[in-house]
């Protein structure tokens, strides 16, 4: 292990965190973007390093400032957190590659320094939530992420003033969520006298029956569920995604809710422990009910949307339902499905939002009715959307199929009526996905373009990242050793290592 790598856990967080003020100092259209991209790529590089290291050597514990845990803050890189960090920084880097021209159209140039500063803060926050082994630290990073994302969403106001309202609503909901998490952490601290997650976990069983701990569990779960946009706490999400600038939507769709899924898994499996979560309290039935309603009901809502971004946003809520169900199944297979879907859905949805961003760049609208004939006007971009849509539906050879396959296996593993019912519900929901993707494709390809519409593709700097994502979709749908392999490692680590 060389000297640079021994500091990799902190570098992956500090690089974007320190980059934010630097980016804020710069003006102009290119420099802030270039800084953000390079720093995000550096963070991505460290994340991959960490992921490979963790999966070959074993978990890393990094003591901040040399203070030994549980007194000092500890960064823990285990197979799960390393995997999620890789997803977050990877998506962020991919989106930034695309961002240069896209963002010029949506945010005024003199604000770009601030914009990318907020972007880097959001990235640092999400990476921090994932890596930290300290419960209070989670709250701190959560707030960094949330505050910067309120700003980022409101940046969409130049296109549509409703972005301000969306950001405000997210602020209200996000603050409640964060507060709940803080209360939960506070109660646990009061009972255990420690903030270190591993430490709390080791003391948890002894105090699991006490009233404050039960309340803490309730606060934590509801708090994370709000951040996760779990049905019916999703109300902030569709508006936020719809009115935010294109790249922000793409960035958040692949990362923000995924981090919350990570937190949910972390709390349920590492902190509370599997026996308590699914034995003592009825988490399975609670999460599963909400998850199933989410992927059925929200898919139907997506069918009726007339704005493409909004449609994809509701589809995200539905997909989060799958991940919730995977967690709720309380089995290794379910966890694999959930974790791999974090990865799979991230690349598919981000890829889709990037193509939508390219369409918006050229057409100036994301309303489905304005997309008539876009298949002829922007054939390359439209085709990217179709391929991404296949991934969203879960057609074989795409990652969507891989994660659904694992989820179905996990459901059938139960071997009871609930399992069969779940399988049928998933099939129905996939059919809904066919409908909402087809609705868009039909307008794109089979409605005549309005008179005088010009045929022009988006700039290459946007097209190439879009296609990188599309190719990645098919690569990871066929060669599944990355997504499935690391997800399996993470799941078996959680199931075996949980206390």
């Amino acid at each position, binding site marked *: 292990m060389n000297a640079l790598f021994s500091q990799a856990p902190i570098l992956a967080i500090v690089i974007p965190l320190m980059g934010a003020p630097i980016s804020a100092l710069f003006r102009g259209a290119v420099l802030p973007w270039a800084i953000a991209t390079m720093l995000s790529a550096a963070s991505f590089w460290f994340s991959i390093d960490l992921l490979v290291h963790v999966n070959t050597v074993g978990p890393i514990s990094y003591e901040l400032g040399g203070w030994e845990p549980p007194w000092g803050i500890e960064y823990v890189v285990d197979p799960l957190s390393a995997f999620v960090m890789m997803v977050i920084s990877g998506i962020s880097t991919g989106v930034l590659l695309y961002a240069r021209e896209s963002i010029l159209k949506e945010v005024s140039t003199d604000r770009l320094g601030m914009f990318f500063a907020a972007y880097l803060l959001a990235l640092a926050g999400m990476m921090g939530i994932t890596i930290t082994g300290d419960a209070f630290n989670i709250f701190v990073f959560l707030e960094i992420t949330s505050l910067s994302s309120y700003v980022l969403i409101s940046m969409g106001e130049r296109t549509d003033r409703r972005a301000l309202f969306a950001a*405000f*609503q997210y602020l*209200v*909901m996000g603050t*409640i969520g964060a507060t*709940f998490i803080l209360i939960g952490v506070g109660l646990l601290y009061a009972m255990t006298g420690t903030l270190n997650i591993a430490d709390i976990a080791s003391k948890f069983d002894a105090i699991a029956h006490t*009233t404050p701990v*039960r*309340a803490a*569990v*309730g*606060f934590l*779960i*509801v708090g994370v569920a*709000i951040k996760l946009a779990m049905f*019916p*706490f999703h*109300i*902030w999400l*569709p*508006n936020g995604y719809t009115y935010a600038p294109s790249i922000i939507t793409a960035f958040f769709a692949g990362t923000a809710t995924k981090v919350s899924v990570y937190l949910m898994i972390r709390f349920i499996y590492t902190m509370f422990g599997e026996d308590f979560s699914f034995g003592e*309290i*009825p988490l399975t039935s*609670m999460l599963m009910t909400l998850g199933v309603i989410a992927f059925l*009901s*929200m898919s*139907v*809502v997506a*069918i*009726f*949307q007339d704005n493409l971004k909004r449609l994809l946003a509701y589809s995200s809520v539905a997909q989060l339902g799958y991940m919730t169900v995977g967690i709720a199944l309380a089995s290794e297979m379910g966890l694999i499905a959930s974790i791999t879907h974090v990865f799979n859905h991230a690349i598919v949805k981000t890829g889709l939002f990037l193509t939508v961003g390219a369409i918006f760049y050229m057409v100036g609208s994301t309303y489905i009715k304005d997309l008539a004939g876009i298949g002829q006007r922007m054939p390359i971009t439209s085709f990217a959307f179709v391929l991404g849509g296949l991934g969203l539906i879960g057609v074989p050879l795409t990652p969507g199929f891989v994660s659904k*396959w694992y989820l179905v296996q996990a459901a059938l593993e139960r071997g009871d009526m609930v399992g069969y019912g779940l399988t049928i519900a998933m099939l129905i929901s996939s059919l809904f996905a066919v409908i909402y993707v087809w609705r868009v494709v039909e307008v794109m390809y089979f409605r005549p373009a309005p008179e005088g519409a010009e045929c022009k593709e988006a700039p290459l700097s946007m097209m190439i990242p879009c296609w990188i994502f599309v190719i990645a979709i098919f690569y990871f749908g066929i060669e599944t050793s990355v997504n499935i392999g690391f997800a399996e490692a993470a799941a078996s680590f959680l199931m075996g290592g949980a206390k």
Partner: protein
Amino acid sequence: MIEGLNPGLILILGALLVPFTSGFIRNIYVLALPIIGLYYTWSLGLGSFGHVEILGHTLILTKIDALARVFGTIFHIAAFAGLLYGLHVKDPQQHVATLIYAGAAIAAVFSGDLVSLFSYWELTAISSAFLIFASRNERAFNAGMRYLIIQVTSGVLLLAGIALYVAQSGNMDVAPMELGSAASWLFLIAFGIKTAFPLLHNWVQDAYPQATVSGTVILSAFTTKLAVYALARFFAGEDILLWIGAIMVIFPVFHATLENDLRRTVAYSMNSQQGFMVIGVGIGTELALNGVAAHATVSILYTCLLFMATGAVLYRAGTAKITDLGAVYKSMPLTAMFAVIGSLVIMAFPLTAAFASKSLILSAALDGKMVILWLAMLFGAVAVIDNVGLKIPLFGFFKPGEDMGLQEAPKHMLLAMGVLSVLAIGIGIFPSAFFQILPYPIEYHVYTASHVVTQLQLIIFAALVFVCCVKFNMYPKPQDTLTLDFDWFYRKPLKKFAINLGLLINAGYLGFLRMSQAVIGWFITKARETHGGQGLLSRTAASGVAVSIVMLLFGVTLLLVY
């Protein structure tokens, strides 16, 4: 080339380009494909290639062993000869169907796992049906539909068998199995349909003569031999096959004797020859399996040759019914010569290929002291001499009478027949060279005095019977009638039953459809009301409402957690 690419895919994928070629280029192209495929097959050598992990199961895309390679080789040769024979066809649909069909049969032979095997099995069924439809008349259409139903039934049974087998054993490899479980019986029936087991055989005589002139040639080469291969692969040495095979040898003989249509006659006798191979599989010794592979190869050669010769008559004269034909040999001497060669081969005349291949199976039966089977095969051998070996040339080509004023067959047809004749006689003259490629190493001398004398005695005796029968008007005069066969049962009463059942199902289905439409309509209306536009779940709730929901659910959660 790509590691592990199944050789059959060369033909299947190559077929997709045929519509974009024309004229001379197309001729060269379609003929080149089987040659490339054959070269590739042999350059791969033996072994298994292309292991693919899909969702926990291993697929073996290509597995070549000596048994598979014999079948793969003759399939390539048959595809080449058949395509050469059909060069006059200007309809690209037939070329495409031929190539896909032949490719699928080859790919099925080289499949290393059950899923691939099933896929190609179905592909042969579907692609070959288009060769029957290609006649473009109503009879052919109906026969094609019946053919398709039966072939797809075989596929469905196979799929069911595979599903059961994989569920029980968790294994997807193509490997021998014991007859006993439900899965193995499903396999056997699926294979049996395509092998044309007795009572499952009618599709052969029903469909083959309805195909186009070149289509019949192609059809005769692949489906039944693929099924023999599958039997040899899965059920070698299974006793029940001995008796099925014996019945198969004898049963179609009578029909072949009565039949008026030349091509139907060949179809029946081919059915009888299939019986030899089934018996060989049933015996299951190395010698017998060598005999099966050899006889399948040879049988493809002479069946194709006979279908080509009779097809050429049909092509020029417009009919292949004995009663309508006169002295064909006068105007089509070369075709008549090839018909004679084909007949000599099917008689297993010394110095022809079948003499070598049949004696392998007969010897294997004698080695196993299976005298009754040996007698059944002897009977079959005599019968085939009478009802094909002598009947086709004498009644079809050398009838006394006027010159019919026909033209000799086109050059490419003659060439195709020539290729097959050379092979059939070449194998007969140099059997040891041919035995080199058989699955198991053998030390076997074809031309011993006793073999030759026995066979000649057999032929002379059979010829004597034939001549006497004709002389004394004992031989059933070919009459222009349809010969009734077991298929009457499924063409009349079963059809009526099926139609009535279909009507009933249809009525039930319509009712179900209306009900479902009403239910789905109700769901859509409700979904639109609640999920659409400004519906409850779709509209943007005020922050206050959102917070109230949070509070409510938090309360519920707390209650649950306590």
